[in-house]
């Protein structure tokens, strides 16, 4: 008889426990999203804009008003309206936007990739510039590079992003002619590439439409840089303070005492330990970018989710508002869940 523990095999109870965990997470997600829907629905009804007048114009006669009022189902009690909406959502029917006249799902499939494309580009810029800048600033505290990082942070934080966008357009479009005025692609390249991902640069590359890809990339650069600038500021400030915190720990002293090189101390020891915090910051920044790009989308005429949601709110297009809010909610929850998974991978203590 051999002595020792048998290899681990999950028994029924372990499966049950895992299933319970998944179940709990899912119900938390469901409750969160339902809460979001309730709040958006109620707030949406309190917005003073009248969707009927938004559709028929303010001079229409009362017969036309009543007809559209009924078509929108506004004559039914609020609870019934909400119940119907939730029932439709359950069958993945988000209804129709009265602004675009499309299915909300169709609209979202068009505008959301545009925002993801812009937000991802901005996040890449923010992370690739912000993290090294913050780390170096912490390591060389008090030197000129730290001062530069500080100025970048301060200016990036305090400059209103729409103003910066307008200045960029004024200088680089109107003045120098380096960048296009806005939108996702040159007007004459519109419609040449459609799908499959909705990320225009990627789609154009996949379709080997190099002119379209170049034009799309050219249109992406300016708004992505402006958004990326604000993110660089945020991420570099956070990276700097995380790094400083790590550098004051005793294990750093130990590592140095053991004769580790400076690079190794910073990147292998200190940086490895700030990854979890940094990940949280980057994930939050990404969430912020996905639902907070509206100003830049307006300034650069970028047909994304932010613009879609704002216009819908302004004209009381409730199906579009609810659909967009639900999508943003889902994405935020999704990113949070991904972060949880990443923590487990990066931080041995959470295993």
């Amino acid at each position, binding site marked *: 008889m051999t002595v020792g523990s048998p290899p681990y095999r999950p028994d029924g109870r372990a499966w049950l426990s895992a299933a319970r965990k998944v179940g709990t997470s899912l119900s938390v997600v469901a409750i969160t999203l339902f809460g979001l829907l309730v709040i958006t629905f109620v707030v949406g009804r309190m917005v*003073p*804009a*009248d969707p009927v*007048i*938004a*559709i*028929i*114009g*303010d*001079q*229409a*006669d*009362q*017969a*036309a*008003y009543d*007809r*559209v009022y009924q078509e929108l189902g506004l004559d039914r009690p609020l609870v019934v309206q909400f119940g119907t909406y939730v029932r439709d959502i359950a069958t993945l029917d988000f209804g*129709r*936007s*009265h*602004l*675009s*006249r*499309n299915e909300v799902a169709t*609209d979202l499939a*068009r505008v959301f990739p545009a925002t993801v494309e812009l937000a991802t580009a901005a996040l890449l810029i923010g992370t690739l510039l912000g993290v*090294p800048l913050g780390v170096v600033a912490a390591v060389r505290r008090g030197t000129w*590079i730290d001062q530069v990082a500080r100025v970048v942070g301060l200016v990036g934080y305090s400059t209103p992003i729409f103003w910066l966008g*307008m200045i960029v*357009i*004024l200088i*680089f*479009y*109107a003045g120098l*002619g*380096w*960048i*296009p*005025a*806005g*939108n996702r692609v*040159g*007007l*004459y390249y*519109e*419609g040449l590439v459609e799908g499959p991902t909705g990320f225009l640069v990627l789609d154009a590359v996949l379709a080997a439409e190099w002119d379209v890809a*170049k*034009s799309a*990339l*050219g249109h992406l*650069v300016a708004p992505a840089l402006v958004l990326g600038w604000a993110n660089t500021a945020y991420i570099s400030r956070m990276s700097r303070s995380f790094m400083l915190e790590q550098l004051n720990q005793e294990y750093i002293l130990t590592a140095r005492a053991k004769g580790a090189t400076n690079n190794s101390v910073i990147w292998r020891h200190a940086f490895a330990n700030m990854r979890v915090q940094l990940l949280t910051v980057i994930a939050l920044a990404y969430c912020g970018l996905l639902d907070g790009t509206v100003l830049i989308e*307006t*300034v650069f*005429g970028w*047909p994304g989710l932010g*613009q879609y949601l704002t*216009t819908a709110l*302004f*004209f009381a297009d409730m199906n579009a508002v609810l659909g967009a809010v639900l999508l943003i909610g889902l994405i935020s929850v999704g990113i949070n869940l991904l972060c949880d998974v990443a923590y487990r991978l990066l931080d041995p203590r959470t295993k």
Partner: protein
Amino acid sequence: MGRNVKLGGVALAALMVLHAPATLAQTPDDQLVIGLNMSSMRGLDPQELNQFESAEVVANLYDRLLTLPADDITSVEPMIAESWEVSEDGRTFTFTLRDDVTFHSGNPLTAADAEYSLRRLVKMGLAPARDLTQWGLTAENVDEMIRAEGDTTLVVELPEVWNSDLVLYSLASFSTSIVDSQLVEENVEGDDYGRTFLQTNDAGSGPYTLRTWRANDLLIAEAYEGYWGGAPAMTRVLMRHIPESSAQRLQIENGDIDIATRLSSSDLDALAENDAITIQTTPGVGFYYIALNQENEILANPQVREAFRYLIDYEGLADTVMRYYGNMQQTIVPAGMPGAMEDTNPYALDPARAAELLAEAGYPDGISLTYYATPVTPEYEIAQSIQANAAEAGITLDLQPGDHIGDFRARNYEVFSARTGDRMPDPHAVLQSYAQNPDNSREANLAGFMAWRAAWDVPAEMQALVDEAARELDSDRREEIYAELNQMYLESSPPLITSFQRTDARAIRDRVEGYEGHTTWLTSWDEVTKSAD
């Protein structure tokens, strides 16, 4: 660090190379690029929409029986109807249609399509249905009254006699666009009359076909090679959603767009200085007005109403904020129409006179009222100006910006100001709304009438004249009646005070020719040509 700096340099160089090709070339000679704010567009169904920008698109995707030239909007001209006859009793209109017209789908256009479209407009009963229902056509009688006889004859019969010009104007409206009945029927969902399909698709026979339509983003129309009037010069018309006025200004200055619309006053001022750009203003059938709710005891006093006319800085506004948005006009018949008195503007800003009138009305210590206005240019600037002038006359106006159209329609307000926009090139368009109110009771809920919204029990004599003019067949007599009505309205201290007739301004690059803004929303693209810049 050295490496980082080098990397940065490479990145910057790459950026500049990437951007170098984005040179700001002028728009192609055979394509027209229009910048606009698309956010109020509500789909492209001609029998449903009621909106300026959408109407312009529809006017180019579809044909109508009749048309009104942009430079002479009261002369009805043939379009699909080659000729027409009005019966002696004035009730029956018989149109002979062209037989060489095909829809974009390839289907031939016949009288059955015209019948289908006009009946569809009436039966759907949405906002533009008024174009026909005001002449007595209803969902119940329209199948009998509007009928095709053979492929090229369409008969429109009316239950009552109206001035035939008015009826013909209605049949030139975008709402009477002829849709491809076969194509629409194939796309009907339930009892939606094909609306879902037509809101985002084209079923027309006009000079342009719809290629791409993405709400709040982009619209591309392509020339229709098979157009009966000959293919237009512009092979494509591209409309780009540019919500920011300043962005439109930069783009038209750079030559990236040919036409900019709905610009702010300051951007229009700046563009007016540009040698390559012309500002075009198109008069509209509507007014900037102040409404005084007659359910309010104070405002029901004629002297108080009269006092408000002295609170508007007509001259000052005309020179500044209203330079491109309107022409000063205190009378009710729009300029250029029968009975108009363009130069009769007897009122000027005079707060002291307003205070006197108030005292005579029994309010020597002034009054306080709530004032609703929409916070958009130029309406809000006008409201602020009135508020300041009112203060001098002892009237405290609590100005509350917001979307109060609903309150105005429901009579839940004291003072309200905004602007109207009608489409018929005749005084009747304005008078039937401003000076007719068949039942002033709250229960009647006639929110389609401006006079009802002001709770104004319009003098019976005035209402009768409005009706008489619309039925009068003799044009000289009509002009007399409108002149009389114009004077009568001016002298009645009306609770709907007009100050400016609206105009719509566009900035157009000089290389574009033949783009004429249309008073009744029928701006057409098929006459447009472009020269080298």
